[in-house]
């Protein structure tokens, strides 16, 4: 797919959004941590996303889906933690269901092809 094609842009953007929203679902995290988690959870396959991590974070923050805050803990560096906003929670739920459908559909297609 052409990288400038709006579809692939949306695809990358959409899946990255979903990943980040999912990461901060349980508790606030800072950027470095998120980058590390994405790498770990996808066995490095999604390393690509680390590069666009911050642009994505800023964009999500601008859209009001997450909220960033500087936090200083004793004995640590000052870090910016991001937490999920109520709007972000809704979006996450909606996207999850769409992706679920998508995967179900892919499954079906795959099975249909095997027959």
């Amino acid at each position, binding site marked *: 797919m052409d990288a400038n094609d709006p579809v692939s842009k949306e695809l990358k953007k959409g899946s990255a959004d979903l990943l980040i929203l999912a990461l901060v679902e349980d508790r606030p995290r800072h950027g470095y941590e998120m980058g590390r988690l994405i790498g770990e959870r996808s066995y490095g396959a999604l390393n690509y996303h680390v590069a666009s991590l*911050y642009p994505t974070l800023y964009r999500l923050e601008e859209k009001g889906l997450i909220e960033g805050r500087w936090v200083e803990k004793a004995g640590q560096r000052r870090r910016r933690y991001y937490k999920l906003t109520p709007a972000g929670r809704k979006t996450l739920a909606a996207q999850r269901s769409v992706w679920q459908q998508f995967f179900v559909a892919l499954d079906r*297609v795959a099975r249909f*092809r095997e027959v």
Partner: protein
Amino acid sequence: MTWRAEVRGALRRQGLPEDDDVVEELAQHAAASFEAGRADGLSTAAASDHVRQLIDGWSRGATRPRRVSEHISEGERRGHFIGFVQDVRYGIRLLRRQPGFAVLAILLIAMGVGAATTLGHVTYAVLVQPLRWPGADRIVLVSETREGQTRTFPGILTNATYLAWRDAPSTLDNIAGYTSRVATLTVGDGPERIRVASATASLFAVLQARALQGQLYTSDNEADGGNQVIAIGFGLWQRRFGERMDAIGSTLELDGDRYRIVAVMAKGFAFPTTATQAWIPMRVPPVLNAADPQARSISLFRAVGRLRDGATVSQAAAEGTARGRSAPSLGLVGTAVFGTQGPPRVSAQPYLESITADVRPGLLMLLAAVGLLLFAAIANVAGMQLARASTRRREVAIRSALGAGAGRLARQLLTENLIIGAAGGVAGWLLSVGLHHLLPQMLPADFPRADEIPSDWRVLAFAIGCAMSASLLFGSLPAVLARRINLVETLVEDGSAPVGHGLRSRVGRMRTAVMIGQVAVAAILLVGASLLGRSFSALMAADRGFDPRNLVTAMLPIPERDVPAAQRAEVLQTIVSRLSHLPGVTAAAVGSVLPLLPFDQPMAFQMPSPRGGNETVSVQADLRTVSPQYFRALGVPLVEGRDFSDADSPGSQPVVIVNRAFVRTYLKDPALGVRLPITAADAAHAHEIIGVVDDVRQRSATDPPKPELYMTYRQAPEAFRMPAPMLVARTSGNPADLVGPLRSLVVEANPRLALDSVMTMDERLIASLARPRLYAVLLAGFGAFALLVAGAGLFGVLSYSVAQRSREIGVRAALGAQPRNIIGLVLRQGFVVTGTGLVIGLAAAAALVRFIGAMLYGVTTDDPVTYAIVVVALAAAAALASVIPARNAARIDPVRAMRR
């Protein structure tokens, strides 16, 4: 190491702002990554390289690192606008990637909008736009009919009613009579033919017209033998008098009579037609003659009045009727003209309505047709959009899955349609501007208000508004589809089209419905076009009692001053004789009128009843003065008796030829030898009937034949003198070739004479049918366009369907289906769509044609041939549109199709 400098450098290289928070956050991540790399055992240099790559990646990210702005609302607003601009850019990019689609869609919309704009514009300008006189909505045309009349004169008033009503009317402020004619103007260098109106002075009051120079003539100028004065139009003053002030008081000549110019009318004034350039006083003669108590005078003219404030048209009509009935009886002249001495009935009609009544049904029909045409064009674009939408469903599905809101997607699709709509609207406007320039040539010469059709910004606004709203309406189909898109279904469908899904998907169904609509529209337009076309050819071919082919005709005005009355016959004889000797001429003649010309010479006389007894019959007939050979030249069959000859001279027995309608109405067989007391009661001067000719439909094929009397021009008494003789010659070759020799022949005979209105009879026939022809031609054009559009649409639908069903067709082929089965499959699909559209279209047409029933001649609205033609035309178009997709389907390679 803090990495801040690296981060700042990277941001700077990307041209991004160095937000302190951003720098801080990225620097911290970089530091942590560096430490992690070192911890994993990387060298300092390797870990640094890794971190630098990370930093580069961040700063190269698609979006600008930026903190939440304090002014969200402003940002959002800008965001919306930027979104729209993005949509437009994206839309244009997509359209540029499919230039074929874009060009076709814009062309279709342009044609539909161009036609709709032009016609809507003409309809408004002619039927709705107020007339240019002050308070024009209060101007009414008053006319009368007579109870029991056998002859109608639409839109005329008699001198009897006019004079009885003129003084102190209670419903009208003013009433004015007028007629108009073409006259030869002589002033300064060279004569010129101009249209002149004779009008009572009250016309200027009715129209509230003012003079630019001089004084308007008054009712004092209307007296018989009074000063001959004239008011001239601004254009004439400019052209012939160079806008000189001394034009007032100077004289000019009209048909040899001198007139003193008393006024120059204000610029833009013209009445009753815009071609009218001068106005002379009209005297309305009294019915009774003091000197001769038996004599009655009648004159017919048109009349307009200005309604008094608060008065209605029906009140005016009622007053006119009452006043008219108080007038003296018209006596025998009333019988001559109306075929009755019954009392008058006056009607009043808003003037605008009266001059546009003839064209109203035609214009409204064309407007409706062009609306259908626009629908067909836009529906075709919608069909193409649906096809594109269905191939873009994957894109749309994924974009919506990834969080692009339904509204955002609908907006993108609508934006695309707006781009096409705007481009189509502008192109359509340009087309309508072009058509506007062609209007003078397209519209018949007698089309009312043809020169009052302005071109202004409202036309552009209408065209673009029309295109945009149509595109929005139809463009919302794919958008609605996008809104409802089902991801699972889409992916399943797209991945491997289920067998037979072709037209059954939602897009397919919608496209089929749009397609059926297009076929139906084409059917309706074709039925209308076919009916009007057949009606027009029936009018052209109608038996009018004469043969219009190979005839050249011309008017030969003979001013009294140039040729004294006594010499007229001689001059005419010379010219006709020379004309008949021109090469190729088989017969030449002259007549007081010719068929298709709007002149009548009605007459009436009493004669003893042919059935015996003491009864007398009051005869009314049209008198025509002709030369020998007139019937041969026109191709009017002589039923019995003989034609006039040169032996029928002023000194010999007066003779007359009648038509069959005359015999049917007033005589019993045999008609030959019967003497008619036309000019005098004594038998010695009675005219003997020497021949009977076939009936001629003088004006239009729909007129019933009327009783007619023909006299030879050499015996015609002074009263029946031909006002402007019409020459006619039949040739064996092309009649147009005769025009030149005819002109020079006339000049040779008398250098002061000049021909006017030289035309072949075919040209007169076509000119007399200009409106039916215009309607038929336009509707045929619309029908052809709709047919083309429907054919192209069907081709698109079938091609798409074949592509969609390639897997299914492959399976069928693999299972042993023969190419002809597969071709049949596609053809069937094409014919089902066409058939359904046809049935709907024909049913709608059958319901709609009654509105044009009154415009038809020689063909009825349920004409089976018409419907058969339409069915055949659409079936042929459908077959043509289906052939290529069917052949492509038959060529599908099963192995390849199934592997795909």
